[in-house]
């Protein structure tokens, strides 16, 4: 796929109108997630500064402060708090209509480290009306376990290949399409979770010390999206993505939204997103007995479920005429309400006996996601 895309790129005639790099800007964000007794919040910082018309640098820093008493945690461990810190730097180089991007990031938790590097290439052609992009990413993770000094750190190797295309269709319409293949190899389990199985021919139940996952995972995702301008000051957008992997997970999500300006300073957005997936072929809410199959897990993220999201956003522009070295700025508030409904994963919080398992309720919960941020262009 990568090779074919590159060949196509080389054949395409690049004409007129040179591309430009994104504007210099700084963003400061506070984020908050609250759902099913999991709270995650923290700051994030992103700055982009050009060194010349052809070189632009980016740097970002991100913190997750996590307090978790989720169902997986309270039934197989105890409530915990931790934080994750992520930092990254990148650079964009522009040559005529081609932009080359390189970057590296590192994420650290007390039991997980991840380093990711990436390379990308974006080519504009047909007077800037079409954009083709190719990307390659490589990640190396290390998985550890806090509560077990005998647990040997485990490695994960990740690779991603991405192809994207954006097309202006008319003076009021633009569409885009993306394809991404991701492959992982290594220790892909969550080391703190086990699978649940019946004991004593169904009279009792227990959790295993660890899940047993395959050592590899390869996934493909394809998406299309479009935006249409509604005169004089609004737009509608839609997006669809299809996902499949070799763990037998199939997923679809579809999204619609409406964005509108009020005057020169206010901008508002509402949206709806629906997501649904099938479960992996090694997920079971409860296995009939220990070692029932080669691979076994009880992660709700890999169980069949769906969710509905309602999105609201507002943005206010300040300094519209600039001040000192600043060109303009916005203050923004985005809120997402998400309802998760699981098809097989049940709430086993109060289950003490196997006879109660058939009466467990399917898990359902709401999550609230908030982003408050300031963007300044300079």
């Amino acid at each position, binding site marked *: 796929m990568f090779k074919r895309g590159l060949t196509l790129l080389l*054949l395409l005639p690049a004409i007129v109108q040179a591309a430009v790099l994104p504007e210099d800007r700084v*963003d400061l964000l506070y984020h908050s997630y609250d759902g099913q007794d999991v709270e995650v919040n923290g700051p994030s910082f*992103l700055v982009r500064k050009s060194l010349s018309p052809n070189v632009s640098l980016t740097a970002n820093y991100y913190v997750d402060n996590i307090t978790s008493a989720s169902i997986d945690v309270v039934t197989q461990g105890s409530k915990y708090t931790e934080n994750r810190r992520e930092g990254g730097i990148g650079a964009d180089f522009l040559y005529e209509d081609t932009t080359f991007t390189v970057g590296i990031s590192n994420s650290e938790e007390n039991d997980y480290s991840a380093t990711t590097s990436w390379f990308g290439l974006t080519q504009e052609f047909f*007077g*800037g009306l079409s*954009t083709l992009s190719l990307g390659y990413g490589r990640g190396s993770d290390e998985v550890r376990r806090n509560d077990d000094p005998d647990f040997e750190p485990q490695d994960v190797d990740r690779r991603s290949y991405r192809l994207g295309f*954006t097309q202006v269709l008319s003076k009021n319409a633009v569409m885009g399409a993306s394809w991404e*293949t*991701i492959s992982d190899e290594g220790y892909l389990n969550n080391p703190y979770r086990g699978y649940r199985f019946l004991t004593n021919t169904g009279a009792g139940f227990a959790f295993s010390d660890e899940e047993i996952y395959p050592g590899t995972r390869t996934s493909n995702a394809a998406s299309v999206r479009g935006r249409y301008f509604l005169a004089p000051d609004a737009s509608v957008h839609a997006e669809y993505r299809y996902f499949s992997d070799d763990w037998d997970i199939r997923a679809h999500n579809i999204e619609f939204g409406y964005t509108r300006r009020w005057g020169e300073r206010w901008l508002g957005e509402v949206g709806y997103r629906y997501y649904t997936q099938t479960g992996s072929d090694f997920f079971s809410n409860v296995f009939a007995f220990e070692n029932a199959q080669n691979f076994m897990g009880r992660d709700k993220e890999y169980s069949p479920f769906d969710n509905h999201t309602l999105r609201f956003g507002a943005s206010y522009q300040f300094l519209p005429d600039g001040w000192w070295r600043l060109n303009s700025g916005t203050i923004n508030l985005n809120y997402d309400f998400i309802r998760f409904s699981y098809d097989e994963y049940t709430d086993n919080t109060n289950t003490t006996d196997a006879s109660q398992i058939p009466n467990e309720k399917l898990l359902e919960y709401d999550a609230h*996601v908030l982003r408050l941020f300031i963007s300044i262009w300079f």
Partner: protein
Amino acid sequence: MKSVFLILLLLGSSACTQVEPWVKPYERANLADPVMLFERDPISDSYMHHVREAREGARGAAGSAGGGCGCN
């Protein structure tokens, strides 16, 4: 094979003849409007990708290819 050759021929010939942009630069005001940007706020969008990838089995192909408004 014949169709591949024809496509290559067409692409090759288009490299010699300038293709006129079908949306002229002076017709791109609507496309440049902030309401038409796929990813207006990169810091917020990347956070939402992170939230979803942590809680959903699907991953990848999120976000746009960049550019595409032709407004430069």
